[in-house]
């Protein structure tokens, strides 16, 4: 089976150490996490992990089942590339003086649908949301002007369907449960 890009979503209780418990499941199979983000979900008090991996579907299925079996995990799902709407956010810091040397930077920023997040006396920060190839393309164009600092966030993604995985766990949340 061929490796492909997958997005794994995990709905969990908000518990110290759960990140470690989930990542060890990948470590055990020597699977590299391309990115991992945690945030609140649409359900109050419920957190979600969004994990990007490139793996075979067979491995991903096994990993997702082992994640879902963890006590504090409410639900784990996986999606192929076409089944999610996804974004990443990138920040690029360049020297302010490169702006004064003409209109090139402004043109590049406009053409890439990026924006200036802040303009300080010594540096400016440009922000770009998009697929990795898009943030990479902007990086390549800015690179000749000297990028002082660059960061890209992990992938965030939502399912390309009317309801997210959270829909399935509403009933579970009615269950009586100790509060630690």
């Amino acid at each position, binding site marked *: 089976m061929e490796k492909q890009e997958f997005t794994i979503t995990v709905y969990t209780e908000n518990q110290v150490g759960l990140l470690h418990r989930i990542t060890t499941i990948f470590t055990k199979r020597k699977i590299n996490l391309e990115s991992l983000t945690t945030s609140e979900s649409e359900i109050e008090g419920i957190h979600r992990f969004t994990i990007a991996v490139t793996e075979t579907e067979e491995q991903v*299925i096994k990993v997702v089942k082992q994640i879902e079996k963890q*006590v*504090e995990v409410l639900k784990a799902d996986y999606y192929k590339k076409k089944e999610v709407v996804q974004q990443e956010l990138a920040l690029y810091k360049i020297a302010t003086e490169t702006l004064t040397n003409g209109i090139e930077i402004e043109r590049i920023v406009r053409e890439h649908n990026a924006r200036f997040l802040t303009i300080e006396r010594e540096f400016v920060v440009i922000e770009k949301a998009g697929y990795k190839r898009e943030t990479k393309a902007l990086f390549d164009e800015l690179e000749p002007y000297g990028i002082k600092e660059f960061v890209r966030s992990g992938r965030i993604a939502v399912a390309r369907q009317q309801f997210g995985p959270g829909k399935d766990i509403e009933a579970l*949340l009615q*269950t*009586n*449960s*100790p*509060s630690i």
Partner: protein
Amino acid sequence: MASIDLQPTENKSPSHQTTITGAEAVVQALIQEGVDIAFGYPGGAIMPVYDALYDYQDRLHHVLARHEQGAIHAAQGFARASGKVGVCLATSGPGATNLITGIADAQIDSTPLVCITGQVPSHLLGSDAFQETDVIGISMPVTKWNYQVTKAEEIPLAIAKAFYIARSGRPGPVLIDITKDAQFQQLDFHYEKCTSIRSYREEPAIEIDQIEAAANAINDAKRPYVLFGQGIILAEAEQEFKAFVEQGNLPAAWTILGLSAMETSHPLNVGMLGMHGNYGPNLLTNECDVLIAVGMRFDDRVTGNLEKYAKQAKVIHLEIDPAEINKNVFAHIPIMGNAKKTLPLLTQRLQKKDRSEWLARFAECDRLEHEKVIQEELHPTKDILTMGEVIHILNEKTGGDAIIVTDVGQHQMVACRYAEFVQSKSNITSGGLGTMGFGLPAALGAALGAPDRTVVCVVGDGGLQMTIQELATVYQTQAKVKVLLLNNEFLGMVRQWQQLFFDKRYSSTEMINPDFQLLAKGFRMPTNQVTHRDQLDHALTEFIETDGAYFLEVMVGKENNVFPMIPSGSGVAEIRLD
């Protein structure tokens, strides 16, 4: 469940007291969970709990092991023999890390344990304080759940959750780490057992469609074949399982953790699976048309090379843990759920069938294995004693009604192959992790967990020396542990592999041993040594009939091998008889 307000004990003043210390809450919570025995080892960070235990000695007996690894294996043996949750206490740092092997063993063999470790005071967390270790982080991959308590008020809830998680669904080990300050703090104690956790499902819902599909497949099958594992024992579904195989007239073979779930003498019990299992059960895995796995997880020691495993068969997998479905072997018909509930649903849909031709295949293989292996192993013609003949005579002395606890290695395979059983929860061994040193402490725990039964610890000279210090615990507790040392003065299993696969290069496997007779005497045990066959029968009689602990050493052949054998990487049908 209603909450229970605990009455303070008589020797505690004043009687109207409503607040207690965290340490006392730990002890009271354990008592509320029905714990009357705990295994452990004290140390700085767990001292308040030990201090609290002092007042409850009449209700909660603490077994002082000689090493934390001994304590946790004893808790495992206790759990496996009694069906209850094993409880283990240890201090922070080295105390906690010494538990890890046992926790990993319990995780892979689904043994319910609650481990309670002391931790440095919360204000010192992360400062590399004396005996500080991140036991939460270290134990995370090998626990079903773990939790660090830093406030006394969390103790009742944490312990209630721990017991519920450890014993429900697919059981497993849980660790609760409690900072020393939380043990000293006061709390208003009341205890309520945990019965549900919203993010946790004990067992998946049963799908009747799958039950029907499975029943049809079995009814249509010409050569159906059942594999059973510890899931039967953990679900206490022994009767349901027997009814199932009897109704379907289905040959059934066991994994070493499933051993004793069905009595040895049952005509449908066809024997042992896996690397050193019986010939027919392995060979015929690749001849059956429907393979029904019940409460087992297709471990690689059972399946051999998966590419050559049961490819012709339609696989039905009864399993409580959804993550086990399709993990190693694809299940055409997965039946998720608790075997105690799913088996009767399946049984009531099964037709009685004549399977004499198929069963005769197993009998045929059995004859061949007897001729090539078993006859000589149990009734040797050479002077050198075999492990098999010792177990064979042991069966006569116990009538098959003993708990056999084994360590890991050749003696383990021989004991599993030849020991006979008449009741469940009678075979205790380290299966998944293969932990040498498991046997003696697990036998101690089993003897305390099933005090009315005869407990025999079959152990090799290698494994015994890994936890031999627990003979002192046997003496202190007066547990009736009968140690049967099969001494071949080698790490026999590794030596066997060296002989077969590494050109007889016996690298670091020969053991120049201590005088085990003197050692056992030092631990104040009655002892005996057998060096010749004519001593064996009498020695085993005395071994079993002596009331209390006993140490019997039998000198067996140094270079005997365990056969049959499926060489690593081979398929089950490539099983070698010699």
